């Protein structure tokens, strides 16, 4: 019987000073290099309401993208263009990574099944943490080779930690 196993593929974090975006955020070319169009639209909207919140938003998104890049563990930046690492928001306001185009394909090739993200701000700084989980499907022969930090899902969906 095969089992589905979720293993941590990589972790990444990043911290960035929010004020570093105060000048370059005026440059459309910079924004398009680093952010998805929907993120840029959201930034411009926030800017009309509150400049400080808008820069905080941008810095948090940058930290999240950098964290995702790091969690992919040494993959060339050209395969992880930041506009393709879109950071959207769930209905409850929590951030969620939505990979786009070739970056999504890369994640699929690596069997990345889940991306966990947290962003925080305090005064001048924004910080983000990311965990990538890869999905492994093990046949019976290979189940003895399970490693630590894995979660196994049996055929009826129950989860347990591997030993």
């Amino acid at each position, binding site marked *: 019987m095969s089992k589905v196993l979720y293993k941590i593929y990589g972790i990444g974090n990043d911290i960035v000073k929010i004020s570093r975006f105060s000048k370059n955020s005026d440059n459309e070319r*910079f924004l398009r290099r680093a952010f998805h169009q929907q993120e840029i639209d959201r930034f411009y909207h926030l800017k009309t309401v509150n400049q400080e919140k808008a820069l905080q938003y941008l810095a948090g998104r940058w930290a999240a993208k950098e964290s995702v890049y790091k969690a992919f563990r040494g993959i060339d930046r*050209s395969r992880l263009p*930041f*506009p393709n690492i879109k950071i959207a928001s769930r209905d409850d306001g929590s951030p969620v990574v939505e990979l786009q185009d070739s970056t999504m394909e890369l994640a699929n090739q690596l069997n990345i099944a889940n991306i966990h993200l947290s962003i925080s701000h305090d005064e001048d700084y924004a910080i983000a943490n990311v965990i990538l989980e890869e999905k492994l499907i093990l046949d019976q022969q290979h189940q003895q080779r399970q490693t630590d930090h894995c979660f196994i899902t049996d055929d009826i969906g129950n989860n347990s930690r591997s030993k």
Partner: protein
Amino acid sequence: MFSRAIRSAFTSYTPSMMARTSAQTTFRYYSAGGALSEGEVSERVLDVVSKYDKCVGKKVTPASTFSELGLDSLDSADVLVAIEEEFNIEIPDDEADKINSCKETISYIRRTPTAK
């Protein structure tokens, strides 16, 4: 040509170009038409990089990597946007992500026929 030189001198991308002062600003009269020479490209690239605030006071050479100059990924993005504006080009994202040094920047500009 003259108008481009004026525009370049005064409207270069300046997120961190605070070190540029009127005393330092110079007019440049680069020839129009034809590929830019390696010397000219090198001089202009090093000029842009050396004026980035984190690089002021540091020795910037064609061999300098962005990492050696203490530039992180955000700094690199800033510098490359300034380079784009200096040469009036747009570096594709996948190419920009491969540029990590002055030498690679110069090489990219040299093989970009639209660079001015």
